[in-house]
């Protein structure tokens, strides 16, 4: 009924115009992505003209994985991917645990200062990434210097500092996703478990956790993607030997335009497509169960 009146309104307004505009907007969103994919198969190295189909950029890319004779840059590309995955996995696990705890505290308890805490939680999402990046750079540098003066142990930026930084900006996303699920959950289920003699710990693992797990997973996937994608915060908190895939690609872009970047970019696009679909499937699961 609602859609019907809506459509009559738009019909008078010009549904065709809207459809045309939508086509234009979606073309704008997809044309660059398509061009990137097409050019990753273009034989020409420098020209935008199509000079024939080739897989050589992909071959070059994968040679870094299998052949010891591959040039150093393609080898270090795979190391950067490995770094990206290590960072994304560990930071996602940390953020999922902390974010879920925060969601449970905010959703299941009433306490003074909860509004303030909610604001604190949202702040890392709101403030510009570059501010977060430089503040973590300054923080780590200062802490490392103090530690060195106190203990003589010299610490430098590297994988751990990037992992901590990524976990920090991911916590809020997990909390938001899990809280939404907790709010939908009937508290009677937990009360019933408690009345039947289960303690809080048992109630959580047997009742609450299985019910919120899809939401945690969905939030974790978002955090995982954010971590894999992140450039700015990583740029400031990384050290020697902790280059991530986006940082590596950035270096390649800065140095020269080689079609190998098109090939990596295409693979990164496919990876995000896979992640989106997984996430949507999970969200469907959440709403179906609901």
């Amino acid at each position, binding site marked *: 009924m609602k859609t019907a009146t809506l459509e009559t309104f738009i019909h008078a307004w010009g549904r065709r115009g809207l459809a045309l*505009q939508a086509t234009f907007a979606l073309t704008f969103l997809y044309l660059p992505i398509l061009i990137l994919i097409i050019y990753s198969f273009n034989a020409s190295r420098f020209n935008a003209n199509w000079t024939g189909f080739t897989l050589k950029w992909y071959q070059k890319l994968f040679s870094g994985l299998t052949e010891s004779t591959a040039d150093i840059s393609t080898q270090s590309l795979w190391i950067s991917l490995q770094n990206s995955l290590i960072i994304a996995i560990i930071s996602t696990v940390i953020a999922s645990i902390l974010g879920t705890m925060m969601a449970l505290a905010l959703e299941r308890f009433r306490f003074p200062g909860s509004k303030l805490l909610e604001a604190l939680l949202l702040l890392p999402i709101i403030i510009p990434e570059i501010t977060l990046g430089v503040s973590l750079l300054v923080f780590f540098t200062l802490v490392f210097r103090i530690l060195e003066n106190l203990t003589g142990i010299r610490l430098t930026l590297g994988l751990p500092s990037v992992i901590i930084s990524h976990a920090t900006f991911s916590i809020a996303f997990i909390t938001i996703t899990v809280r939404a699920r907790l709010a939908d959950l009937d508290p009677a289920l937990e009360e019933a478990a408690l009345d039947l003699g289960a303690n809080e710990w048992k109630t959580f693992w047997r009742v609450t956790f299985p019910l919120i797990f899809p939401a945690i997973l969905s939030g974790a996937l978002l955090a995982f993607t954010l971590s894999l994608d992140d450039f*700015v915060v990583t740029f400031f908190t990384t050290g020697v030997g902790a280059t991530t895939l986006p940082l590596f*690609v950035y270096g390649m872009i800065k140095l020269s335009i080689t079609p190998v970047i098109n090939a990596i970019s295409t693979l990164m696009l496919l990876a995000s497509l896979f992640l989106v679909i997984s996430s949507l499937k999970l969200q469907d699961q959440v709403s179906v169960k609901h």
Partner: protein
Amino acid sequence: MAFLLQKPSHSTLETRKTKNLLLLLLPPTIWLLVFFIIPLVIVFIYSFLQRGTYGGVTWEFTWSNYQRLANDLYLNIFWRSLGLAALTTLICLIIGYPLAFFIATASPRWRNLLLFLVIIPFWTNFLVRTYAWIIILRSEGLINTVLQSLNLIQEPLNLLFTPFAVIIGLIYGYLPFMILPLYATIERLNFSLVEAAQDLGANDIRTFLRIILPLTYPGIIAGSILVFIPALGAFITPDILGGAKTVMVGNLIQNQFLQARHWPFGSALSMGLMILVLIPVMIYFRSSNSENSL
């Protein structure tokens, strides 16, 4: 009966609840305090310190970083960033609103497909999406190749490393952030109000301006904030697509921290950027709070 006797008294239940709350609350709160609030406080303090000889800081109070920020050179970069971010937001709104409207009013099947199409770029690596524009805009790029082969131009146009390229890149990067909240509000719109307006004789334009636009205002504001904030602090887009003439605050901050190694001035710039960003957010939360209390 024994079971009843074992039931904890009210007060022990309360203390147990408090204990549980603290167990849940402390780890994430401490994490955010240590790795988020304290770093921001340090940057705030650094912005009042002086630069050390080798790029560090000396612990002497000064206003000079903020005075330097008021210099025309840096103020211009702030103004340019504000202008580019505002223009990006406006164009995203102009492109995004009709699209969000179209998606929200499509049949459920189409709606899901179109939403999916908007979400994919939203999840796609920002750097990769920005890089795609280099292929399109550079002098041997797609636009110039097409125009030259059509004999429309003789010499390649200078498109890359211009403010135009930065604006395109920003719009492209943040358009999904505009569409999604707009879609959410339009989809929830109560269309009996639209009907009522039309029954009362309002024409389409009037209905749109008086009913639909005000009702979707929260989505417009939310989308605008989501686009404006990252656009204002943008670093990758001006770095990759803009030339030396299209430096934005983000690049300036990066430069102060990594090349010039003037951390106190970089800190002052970060503080300036953060304040610029927090103003619209505070206004938004004020207005949405007052709306909730209605």
